[in-house]
């Protein structure tokens, strides 16, 4: 499996001098699973990836959307393969209670917000609303989706292919005291605690023995807020140890996180977890598992 980062920034795209090296595009990751093209999330990073996929003549694309907050779908209308005849784009996202992923993306392209409607796409689009815990096959890859602790409906993904494991765990407040997801916050203390532990166990299942895990490191430990639905860098180390992850990529960097801060984080985390060849994901990083 080969993994390429096209967008690593959280919340919104940033183009200031403080983040030139790690990059300012919002989340998008490309996975080459022995020839099958898997894309995770449609932040602004998907713009440049789309141009590349058209140049390469990629006709079959599988797009996994972790959730539908703006920073994970904002680039979707600009994904060039949507406008290519003879191309098939399969779109997967965790099911919402009240609307389909197709409706959610369609709404983004309605007037008076956007000039080109989804139904005008030349590519054939196939939508799948995933159940929690759903497993399916994309070419040679086995994919698993588990719910994460983040507002609305958010899924993480585990992709196994040719004996290697990739895990995508963003966005989530993994060890926080609150439940953030839609429909998750109601119930007795016991019910809530049980849900919290279930979400944590599900996340460990996604990450177990991963060769590479991408993890939501929006906060530094001293910035952490328990009502946002994001984790911090120490959580990345804790989960990595718990699930015996071989390599961890800090991801979904806060808009104000500078290149120097990320350099320092990698050095600090690297010292504390010497067995993990940890990195802070940067736009353009290409890793072979």
């Amino acid at each position, binding site marked *: 499996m080969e993994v390429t980062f096209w967008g690593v920034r959280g919340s919104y795209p940033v183009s200031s001098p403080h983040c030139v090296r790690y990059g300012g595009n919002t989340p998008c990751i490309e996975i080459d699973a022995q020839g099958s093209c898997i894309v995770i999330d449609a932040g602004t990073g998907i713009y440049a990836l789309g141009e590349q996929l058209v140049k390469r003549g990629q006709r079959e694309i599988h797009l996994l959307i972790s959730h539908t*907050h703006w920073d994970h779908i904002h680039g979707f209308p600009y994904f060039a393969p949507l406008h290519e005849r003879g191309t098939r784009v399969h779109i997967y996202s965790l099911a919402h209670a009240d609307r389909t992923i197709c409706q959610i993306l369609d709404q983004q392209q309605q007037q008076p917000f956007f000039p080109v409607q989804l139904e005008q796409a030349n590519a054939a689009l196939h939508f799948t609303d995933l159940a929690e815990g759903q497993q399916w096959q994309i070419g040679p890859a086995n994919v698993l989706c588990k719910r994460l602790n983040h507002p609305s409906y958010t899924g993480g993904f585990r992709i196994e292919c040719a004996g290697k494991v990739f895990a995508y765990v963003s966005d989530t407040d993994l060890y926080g005291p609150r439940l953030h997801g839609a429909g998750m916050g109601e119930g007795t203390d016991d019910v809530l605690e049980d849900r919290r532990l279930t979400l944590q166990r599900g996340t460990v299942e996604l990450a177990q023995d991963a060769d590479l895990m991408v993890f939501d490191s929006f906060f530094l430990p001293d910035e952490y807020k328990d009502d946002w639905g994001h984790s911090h860098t120490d959580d990345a180390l804790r989960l990595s140890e718990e699930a015996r992850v071989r390599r961890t990529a800090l991801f979904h960097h806060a808009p104000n996180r500078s290149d120097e801060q990320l350099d320092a984080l990698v050095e600090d985390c690297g010292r504390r977890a010497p067995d993990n060849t940890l990195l802070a994901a940067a736009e353009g990083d290409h890793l072979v598992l």
Partner: protein
Amino acid sequence: MRIRLWGARGEISIPRSETRRYGVNTLCVQVESSGASTLILDGGIGLNGLGNALFAGAFGRGQGQAYLLFSHTHWSHIHGVPFCLPLLIPGNAFRLFGRGGAHAMRELLLEQMQPTYCPVPNFFYENIGAQVEVCELDDPQPLQLADFRVEHAEVGHSHGGPCMAYSISDGQASLAYIPVVEYRDEASRARAVALCRGADLLIHDAYYSDDEYPAQQGLGHSCPQQAVDVACRAGAKRLILFNHHPARTDDALDATVKALSHVPMPIEAGCEGGEYIL
């Protein structure tokens, strides 16, 4: 009047090395009057940076007051609103203006705050964050907002809803703002010329290049030649080309401006961080 550009890019912000000098934040312009009132034109991604800057002053203490005028509701004009920090601070007061057309402006702005799409608490509701009032621009009369006099005109319908242009004066200087427009006929051009008559500064749509425009006619945007034409006919004193195509590189923008050096008027391509004192 002090003007600062926080975002001059059209459509979508795609950070990359070829666009670093002019920047990729979508549209947002800050206007400070000589009496220190704050008015903001459009709320694209540039509004995030402006919000952070305002937060360092009175807006961080919940004592800020600002007016925000939208040309229309395409994403590149409103997508910075959820992450504009001062809107989350109780005590601040914002009045938002625009023309919604078939839908109320408030309803349109609320769309992007839905929890399906937006992780930020909805400060449009009472008791959350700043006091936010949305005003429909259905009266053609000019507005007086603190010490700003604001004239407005509808300049196009090609975006599925009304598209507004503004002329802003603080009694000492005037700014005309036409970020998105396509002139379908002489009448629409004359309306724009009337709105920017004698402006000290005109910020005008130049999404397409002059070469690209003929093939893109009808899609709702202008090119530099049309911006120059309106600026000259209106007797504007200075022109900023604005709303750059996402693929337009720094070098291409430099070349565009160079090619207009024969025009007897200062012309620049709008650049993130650019400041003008009128």
